[in-house]
């Protein structure tokens, strides 16, 4: 789960990390009064949970009321990389000498947390990581001990941070690690961590992604996550409500299946047979009629979808139950909105295939045939 910048900054500030003065605004007028409060010059920043906001035109500097008005007008309501900009953060513009990077994440290959520092902070840190990995000092952390103070110092000195601010940067890294550890963090990043002419350090941006599986221990963060849903589209909200693993894609073949690996494979097969997948949707285990109805509602609600492939491999889930669920869900419609191809396999699949009502769905025996049929249907609609 991703927090917005304004939320992450609040979490970081609570942990003692210096952050600029800022206020959230949902309208142009609110942005202007926020700027008066914070003091000019300010940065007006789109609050959407995606990287690269600056390059996409979602961050503008403004000195004076006119400029704030203009910036807020252009940013509020914009579509930024598929996210809707509903709020802006109006923040004191920091006059800086240097931009650093500090971050904490899980190195899954090592199975250990890793704390990172670089003197090459700023918008191109991902390129730096790719082209010059040594420019980022890394300390792997023994999760049983946590980040030792010497490790924070070593990362800072190895990265080549100026001695005048080394202690402060090490302290920011230590705080960042602790909050990452305590709050079930997946990624915690400050980029840039600005260094001012007076050798102050201040977190000009903040990223905090929480491990969704750790949210049961983090009621406050869970609430923040719900509060932050204002940048989501209708389908994503629906997926949250139905509790589905759902990812929207650009194509027109809707996909419903069970098990992440098999659903991904179904997406890949749609592509392999010349179609384009519209989504990833994993209904998980079980075959309750309501869940099947919700899954169909999800894909039917996506106006890009022209056909649907429904692929269930029953392990413990029984094919006959799934078939009854599909019949019941589609029986509710006077007219089936989009053609549905069904393929059932595994436990009781033959019974399931017989139960399926062929007035409602097209039945195929193999995964490959089902995908090809759905791709054909989608192409017929396009033609």
């Amino acid at each position, binding site marked *: 789960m991703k927090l917005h910048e304004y939320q992450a900054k609040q979490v970081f500030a609570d942990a003692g990390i210096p952050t600029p003065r800022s206020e959230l605004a949902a309208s142009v007028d609110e942005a202007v009064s926020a700027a008066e409060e914070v003091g000019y010059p300010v940065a007006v920043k789109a609050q959407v949970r995606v990287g690269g906001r600056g390059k996409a035109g979602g961050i503008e500097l403004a000195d004076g009321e006119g400029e704030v008005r203009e910036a807020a007008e252009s940013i509020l309501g914009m579509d930024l990389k598929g996210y809707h900009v509903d709020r802006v953060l109006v923040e004191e513009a920091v006059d800086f000498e240097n931009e650093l990077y500090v971050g904490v994440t899980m190195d899954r290959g090592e199975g250990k947390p890793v704390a990172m520092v670089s003197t090459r902070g700023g918008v191109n840190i991902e390129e730096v990581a790719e082209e010059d990995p040594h420019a980022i000092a890394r300390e792997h952390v023994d999760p049983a001990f946590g980040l030792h103070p010497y490790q924070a110092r070593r990362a800072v000195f190895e990265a080549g941070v100026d001695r005048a601010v080394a202690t402060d940067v090490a302290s920011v890294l230590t705080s960042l690690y602790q909050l990452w550890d305590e709050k079930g963090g997946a990624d915690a990043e400050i980029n840039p961590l600005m260094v001012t002419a007076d050798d102050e350090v201040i977190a000009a941006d903040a990223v905090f992604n929480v491990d969704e599986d750790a949210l049961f221990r983090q009621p406050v963060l869970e609430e923040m996550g719900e509060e932050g849903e204002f940048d989501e589209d209708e389908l994503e909200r629906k997926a949250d409500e139905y509790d589905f693993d759902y990812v929207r894609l650009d194509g027109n073949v809707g996909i419903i299946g069970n098990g992440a690996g098999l659903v*991904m494979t179904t997406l890949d097969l749609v592509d392999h047979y010349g179609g384009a997948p519209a989504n990833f949707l994993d209904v998980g285990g079980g075959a309750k009629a309501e869940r099947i109805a919700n899954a169909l509602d999800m894909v039917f609600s996506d106006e890009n979808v022209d056909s649907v492939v429904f692929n269930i491999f029953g392990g413990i889930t029984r094919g006959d139950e799934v078939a009854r669920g599909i019949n019941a869900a589609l029986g509710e419609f006077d007219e089936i909105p989009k053609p549905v191809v069904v393929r059932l396999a595994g436990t009781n699949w033959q019974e399931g295939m017989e139960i399926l009502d062929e007035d409602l769905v097209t039945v195929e025996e193999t995964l490959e045939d089902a995908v090809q049929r759905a791709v054909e249907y989608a192409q017929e609609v396009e033609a």
Partner: protein
Amino acid sequence: MSIFVDDSTRVIVQGITGGEGEFHAEQMLEYGTDVVGGAVPGRGGQQVHGVPVYDTVQRAAEEEDADASVIFVPPTFAADAIMEALDSPLDLAVAITEGIPTQDMSRVKKRLSEVDTELIGPNCPGVITPGETKLGILPGNIFSSGDVGLVSRSGTLTYQVVDNLTERGIGQTTAVGIGGDPIIGTTFVDALRKFEADDDTEAVVMCGEIGGEDEERAAEYIGAEMDTPVVGFIAGRTAPPGKRMGHAGAIVSGSGTGTAESKIDALNEAGARVGDTPEQVADYVEDLL
């Protein structure tokens, strides 16, 4: 022969009094698994499906002379349940639980390096040696005994590939689901090493997916040390970067690591053929036998 488990494996079930644990203990018993006990704190002295329940894993393992545990404990307590299994005389723990926090698993991984007990999972369907025993939730009826080893990060994808193999009359020595989480116990390399050492395994199918670098490490091992031929499959070719595709571990990072392309290239370079479809995987396996 087989890897990890066979008909002599004595199994306890952690969480046997819960809905999932009870259901799958019964399924395992029906399949022929030697389920000899359960472990649930506070439930010692009870019986489930005729199997005695103990308060601690230690006691269950000692009293019943058990070799392995299958863990159906909810995510809130699962890492602790794994730790308990690792701190017992058991040789193997199989964690089925989905949704364990990654930081918890980081601590488990650290502990694994200090003990002899092995871990399969979490977030996995388990391990089956067809005709002998199964530990987990795999549907026994789709598997059959044979010459091919199978290792996979995904449950239903495993079933799909097994289905394609069965159509061609090809059975398995052992099939193991290693799980879809970012941090897991047994890795591809660990499983491949065991298959390589197993005289009865004539070929191995390895089903990977996007995210992480386990498949690339496996490819290195295949190229350098394996004589047994490997056929690969990688799910997630069409997954966009930065989006988690269901499994917590299935995500292509923003900087482009963990892509299907990199994994397929690595496997091809190591001499493993990679199927475009599950059906093609089965065709390639058939060619090898």
